[in-house]
């Protein structure tokens, strides 16, 4: 057979491979465009605006203000404190539930999952106000508890940090459970069996085998919850009673107060920077893909 024929064939095949490559890349294109248009560009714009002062010229007054006023530092601390606590309690409540769901049959797990997801079908505002109705001073819980003589005086559940946490944990729980449950389902049940056949008590088998294998799902859940918490607005505003001021609330009130995007975007920029710093440190401490591989 002639060599030339093979050569021309080779060129065509290479072109075919290139085209396939290109098509493949094309699949990511809508996402890239979306990220570019909806995330990169606005963040860049946000960054730019944060250096625009009230009079419209370049200025660092928006950042100066944050350094000079203790309120901003406190608001950031509150934001991180509430986010960390919410994440912690979500893990505390969500892990056992996800574990339980991963151990029962798929049919029952699906029923449980509906229970977990039902809150998603109601608006966040409704759920938040529902907590208020339940937990306020003359709310359902306090009234019943006082009437039954369980409490001599109503407990202050809401309009404070605890109220905010109750509301936020409730709203955030599914975000922790979903990735965690998916991860736990994927854990080979034979691994735990192997551990106990090799001599591990069920508790030991859990901590040495199941728990480490559920880490990727747990970390993903923690990360999602933590990051979503940082931007929370409605729940702390309603259930915090003004005692819990988070960054998003100050961002909103700064737009009103200064009539400019700059004063608000500077807050957004700092929040973003601190969040990225935290995630960077976290990723150094725990390698996120460490347990990602399955045998």
């Amino acid at each position, binding site marked *: 057979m002639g060599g030339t024929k093979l050569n021309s064939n080779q060129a065509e095949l290479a072109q075919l491979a290139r085209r396939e490559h290109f098509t493949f890349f094309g699949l990511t294109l809508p996402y890239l465009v979306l990220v570019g248009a909806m995330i990169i560009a606005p963040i860049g714009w946000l960054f730019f605006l944060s250096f625009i002062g009230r009079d419209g010229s370049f200025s660092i007054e928006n950042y100066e*203000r944050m350094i000079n*006023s*203790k*309120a901003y530092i*406190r*608001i950031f601390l*509150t934001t991180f404190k509430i986010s960390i606590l919410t994440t912690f309690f979500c893990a505390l409540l969500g892990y056992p539930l996800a574990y339980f769901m991963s151990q029962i049959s798929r049919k029952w797990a699906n029923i449980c999952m509906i229970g977990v997801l039902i809150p998603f079908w109601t608006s966040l505002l409704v759920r938040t106000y529902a907590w208020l109705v339940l937990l*306020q*001073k*003359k*709310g359902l819980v306090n009234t019943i508890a006082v009437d039954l003589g369980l409490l001599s005086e109503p407990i*202050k559940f809401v*309009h404070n940090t605890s109220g905010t946490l109750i509301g936020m944990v409730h709203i955030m729980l599914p975000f922790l459970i979903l990735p965690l449950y998916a991860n736990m389902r994927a854990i080979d049940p034979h691994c735990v069996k192997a551990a106990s056949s090799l001599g591990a008590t069920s508790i030991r088998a859990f901590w040495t085998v199941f728990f480490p294998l559920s880490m990727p799902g747990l970390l993903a859940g923690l990360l999602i919850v933590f990051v979503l918490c940082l931007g929370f607005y409605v729940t702390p*505003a309603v259930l915090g*009673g*003004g*005692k819990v*001021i988070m960054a998003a609330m*100050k961002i909103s*009130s700064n*737009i*009103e*107060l*200064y*009539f400019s995007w700059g004063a608000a975007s500077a807050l957004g920029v700092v929040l973003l920077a601190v969040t990225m710093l935290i995630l960077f440190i976290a990723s150094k401490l725990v390698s996120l893909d460490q347990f990602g591989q399955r045998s």
Partner: protein
Amino acid sequence: MKSFCMVKKVAVAAFLLGFASFSTASFADETLRIVSWGGAYQKGQSVGIFQPAAEAMGITVKEDTYGGISDVKLMVKSGADKFDIFSSGAGGCASGGAEGILEKLDYSVIDVSNHLPGMYSDYCAGADIFSVVAAWNTETYGDNGPRSWADFFDVEKFPGTRAMRAKVDSQLEAALLADGVAKEDIYKVLDSEEGIDRALDKIRSIKPHIAVWWTSGAQHAQLMKDGEVDMTTGWNGRFDVAKLDGAKVAYDWKTGIMDWEGYGIPKGVKNKDLAMKYIAEMMKPEYMAEFAKYITYGPTNKLVYELNLMEEARARQMPSHPDNAKHQMTLRTDWYAKWRTIAAEKYTEMMTE
């Protein structure tokens, strides 16, 4: 400009006469869009003022809600065209005017000759008067609640939980009144950072007793209705509505800090002239009297009282009724224009301590 207006007017008239059967809404020039705060307040405005005034002029007025003067700023700065008139507190208008985002009102078109003194400004035509008061739960205190700001800040004489606003507006005035400053001198004292700090320190002194910092009128009304707090600062009209709803709530006009609401026009709206005429129409006393039937926010036009357009009993519930007004101080928007950001940041700092 003027002649062009005439042409338009003639054209409008021709249309109205010739094609009366057509919906007038199909012509942009005859449609105005107005925004307000929603809830019981806007319901009263809509039924009492917006729609009757529109009908009288033969135009269409579409209503919507908005989030305050910052929305006006966003609209003007971005060149969007969403509404022609907005309902706003005097303070909001004042800061909007200072920002240069509002049209100056033409008082040769809008007749304010019968307005109560000070109830209109360059950028805001006053429409109703409301008061910030100290309201108490009558279940807790009976009739003898905090009848002065001094009482409100006296946690020994009046033990119980309190609520104050999460924003600085009217709260510093109340604190200074409680601290013994005469109502004429409030803004003199507040005209320095030391004065602002003095007011804030007064609030700090009762901070452990403040259970809630409220963010909306609906919220403080609900707080009283649910008995979540024993007393709160808030708007008189909201408490009156809550009372009709069964809330155990009372307030004394002696704690009143009068403030007013009016209409402004964002800079550069196409229907500016029609908007101006519409505002002029809305200033008529009969609309204000009708509005006051729905919520206890009093008229700025004193003709309402002089012409006896309101029943005596209802009139006595208005903040601007002479018998009520005489006890009260009036909020000054120029102080807010000068000090708002500083005072607001300090207030937030105090809240987060």
